[in-house]
């Protein structure tokens, strides 16, 4: 999932987190996670002072953003000392699958 400024939102993106009025969880909830964005919905968010949203995958690439391969390499480095241990091997697998899923659909894409 990725948190993006509302100005980068495009119809077709899927919300990964609930959206609240005024960008605060104390504000009124305006749209639930899992919803697909439409132009009308984006306009409504603008009117409700929503500044940023969190969407599924990694649709917006900026210079300096790390790719899935970068994330996986860093994960391997963190587990370098303990990957041979059975419980840590399970945990490594859990994180690897999580990262692949979180970046799903965008893994081949590189920063422009």
């Amino acid at each position: 999932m990725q948190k993006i400024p509302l100005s980068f939102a495009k119809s077709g993106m899927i919300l990964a987190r609930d959206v609240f009025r005024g960008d605060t969880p104390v504000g009124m909830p305006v749209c639930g996670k899992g919803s697909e964005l439409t132009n009308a919905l984006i306009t409504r968010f603008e009117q409700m002072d929503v500044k940023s949203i969190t969407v599924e995958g990694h649709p917006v690439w900026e210079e300096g953003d790390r790719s899935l391969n970068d994330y996986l390499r860093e994960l391997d480095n963190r587990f370098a000392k303990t990957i041979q241990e059975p419980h840590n091997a399970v945990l490594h697998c859990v994180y690897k699958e999580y990262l692949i899923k979180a970046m799903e659909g965008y893994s081949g894409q590189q920063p422009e």
Partner: protein
Amino acid sequence: MASNQSDLKKSIMDTKTLPTLPNVIHKLNSLSDSDSSSVQEMAKIVSSDQVLSARILRLANSPSYGFHRVSTISNAMILLGVNVVKSLALSSSIIAMMEHDSIGLWEHSLGVGSAANLIAHRLKLPECEEIATAGLLHDIGKVIIKLKCSDVDKEIQLRVTTRQIYSLEAEREVLDTDHAEIGGWLAKSWFLPDKLSEPISFHHDVEKSCNNRVKTAVIHLADVLIKSSGFGDSGDDFVPSLQNIAWDILKLDKQLLDELVYELEDKLIEVKNFSFEMLSN
């Protein structure tokens, strides 16, 4: 070297130069022990310290605790209970010590607090707030090392970077003790209850915890998860061994870890935003 190590250990554990807790916390403890004191009385004591009150409310609304609608101290006392407010007062005072000088450690601690809270809720354990507090405070020993001997802290960092070892190993080489022992010792000298001091002392060695093994196992797992995630900076970049005893006590399996990691990573976005907002204020 041996005498040097013990001199350093002595100077770190010298009670005369230990940081002290705000008076309000001691007053709150004695008031909450007495049957005749009222919630209003306690709220008044806490509210008299404006900085502490602000910190408590900010922390109550942080992802580590996640109470979103607490806006006043008396509100917190009634909604959350005296024990939770005591935990909040304690953690906010201690966190104040690391907030500005050790941003990486502060983020690591916030992350472990949030992970511990999440694990405790998921496993339906009692006293989730106490567990979150233990998570926030588990590396307090590192703050003390840095606060009292910044040269030693630099030497530890140097050994970690040049030899790619765990900071725990470097601490033992330099000090003949480690942050967990120092933290546990500090918790005892502040008269913190066992349910906080044991997870602090034994989060790297769950088996040694006698009375609070489940809480200690939760903090151990929370620490391992946050290190796996690469969130914050606790001194080195390596994931520690996930101990057998913790795996068994918490009845872990791949499916449970899958669910925990998914929820935790979602929560860590909030933690990052919270930390960013706090530091920019």
